């Protein structure tokens, strides 16, 4: 979740944003003829030479590990003896592990809480910030600052803030006669506490994306709405939000995918506790592999997570495309 802005992709980049890049529209790719030359074969060979670093790096560290994950999920390996084919036994053991269901519940709970808290917040911040006539730059810096803090450091800070005795939050609550809350120490409040930290850490980059999208709302639409006598509130509902729909739908999907992979927060803040209430899927994968040395189980859970996310994205894109067409 904390590195959302790096993994979100898929969009057509705004060429104008690239500063000195040519500003004219892109010709469709297929209409561009490849370079013609009498030495076409020479160019082909050089082409592959230029591609070599890419192919080696992706081959070794992306394609091969992805394929190996699938193979590994049907194997048992201890890194010493050659791996052994075990059929579906990894998956069977996985489904028999009572911790798996706790983990899935926890992760879904984290994702839902993060949506409720973390999805509307950047939209509101961006809409309000875009109405400010002054200090726009200052606000952008302030909002983005948490994103610049390395996630581990952010989590270590929040560990202090959440401390039940001398944490800032309970101290401040104490000043106004509330609390103290147990924060990370209680099964009921631990997960919401993680969500609060994760939302703080990730909101900034999303705000900047929405701010960029808001600049593209045509002023004529607002003017037309005003001629019809629309209030600010109605303009927000009927002009601003519909115009952001495309970005909102993509960001929603990216946030879901990102939050399903939460790791640093539970790993450093709670180590899955109290009473396994914050063990997430990725934390369980980590434990299977690097605590118990059961790489097959870890790979099987990884494959299941990838498949689940794939199905979620596929269904989501299909459904939202229908909305967009309607």
């Amino acid at each position, binding site marked *: 979740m904390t590195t959302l802005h790096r993994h979100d992709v898929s969009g057509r980049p705004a060429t104008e944003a690239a*500063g000195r890049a040519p500003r004219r529209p892109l010709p469709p790719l297929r209409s561009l003829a*490849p*370079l013609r030359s009498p030495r076409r074969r020479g160019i082909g060979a050089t*082409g592959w030479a230029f591609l070599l670093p890419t192919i080696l790096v992706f081959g070794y560290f992306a394609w091969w590990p992805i394929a190996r*994950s699938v193979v590994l999920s049907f194997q048992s390996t201890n890194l010493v003896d050659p791996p052994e084919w075990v059929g579906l036994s990894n998956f069977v053991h996985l489904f028999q592990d009572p911790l798996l269901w706790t983990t899935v519940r926890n992760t879904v709970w984290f994702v839902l809480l993060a949506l409720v808290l973390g999805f509307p917040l950047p939209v509101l911040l961006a809409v309000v910030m875009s*109405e400010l006539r002054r200090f726009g730059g200052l606000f952008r810096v302030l909002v983005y600052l948490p994103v610049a803090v390395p996630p581990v*450091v952010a989590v270590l800070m929040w560990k*202090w803030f959440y401390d039940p005795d001398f944490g800032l939050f309970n101290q401040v609550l104490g000043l106004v006669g509330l609390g103290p809350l147990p924060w990370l120490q209680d099964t009921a409040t631990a997960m919401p506490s993680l969500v609060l930290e994760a939302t703080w850490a990730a909101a900034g980059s999303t705000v900047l994306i929405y701010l960029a999208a808001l600049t593209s709302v045509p002023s004529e639409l607002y003017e037309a709405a005003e001629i019809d006598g629309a209030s600010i509130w109605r303009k927000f509902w009927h002009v601003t939000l519909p115009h952001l729909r495309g970005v909102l739908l993509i960001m929603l999907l990216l946030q879901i995918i990102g939050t399903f992979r939460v790791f640093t927060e539970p790993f450093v803040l709670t180590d899955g506790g109290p009473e396994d209430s914050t063990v997430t899927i990725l934390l369980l994968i980590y434990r299977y592999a690097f605590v118990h040395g059961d790489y097959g189980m870890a790979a099987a859970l990884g494959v299941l997570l990838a498949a689940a996310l794939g199905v979620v*994205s596929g269904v989501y894109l299909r459904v939202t495309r229908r909305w967009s067409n309607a």
Partner: protein
Amino acid sequence: MNDDDRGRGLVSDVDRRRVGVRWSLRLTQGTLLLATLLAGLGPILWTAKGALSPTQDLLREPLRLWPSSVQWQNLSAAWSELQIGRYLLNTVVLVGGSWAVQLLVAATGAFALSVLRPRYGRVVYGAILATLFVPGTVSLVALYLTVLDLPITGGSIADTPWAVWLPAGAHAFNVLIMKQFFDALPRELYQAAQVDGAGPVRLFWQIVMPMSRPILAVVSLLAVMDAWKDFLWPMVAISDTEAQPLAVALPRLAETAEQNQVIAGMLVAIIPPLLLFLVFQRHIVRGIGFTGLKG
């Protein structure tokens, strides 16, 4: 994205002249300023204060705004006793190498795919894009086993910087934005260079690279910020505690070491990405703009 190139927003000038709207805008602005100062700047200032305070301050008077005694020696103690300097150097080495590999792979790969277009290049591009849809952490375990025992060539790069540098290069997003940038450069340029007898290598070095500074800057910034923040993979790939980056060392140190020194270490870890962000804000905002869609 600048204030001046924006047209108008949701609230019109007519709206703004109404007293109610004006006051609620001011109120919102004030609240927003307070909230963003607290949430954005607050934690960083807290870290700076904690780094210069005696640990007792943190425990006895957590709400103190100013250290009871400013202890600059915390910083040097963190440097010598916790070896923050060594971890910082490790971080710089890992980040520097990851940056170089990412830039090399993205620039050469995108150039080949966009300009030279070898046969089946499109297949390779498709395979690169496909990795965008497989969350990286899913193949974490297999990546670890790969690094332990490389296929074909054999041998292990685990516990060496290469284990962080090379996988960093397999970042499809870099190739994607770089290729889109090259696609937008005028094709006539390449043809003119060819007519003048420039081969692909000269075309790459003397024409395409100098024109690509904006995109190289964006990719570089994103690469460096990302590598600086990385935690899970360096922790897995580098088990030798002496070779770990700050991000991996800090949680371990936090368990045992003197707390104000750990906070001093946290401050050290925050400062470089913070400076980078403040200096290159515009590029970062632009880089984020690349990922944003027009509504």
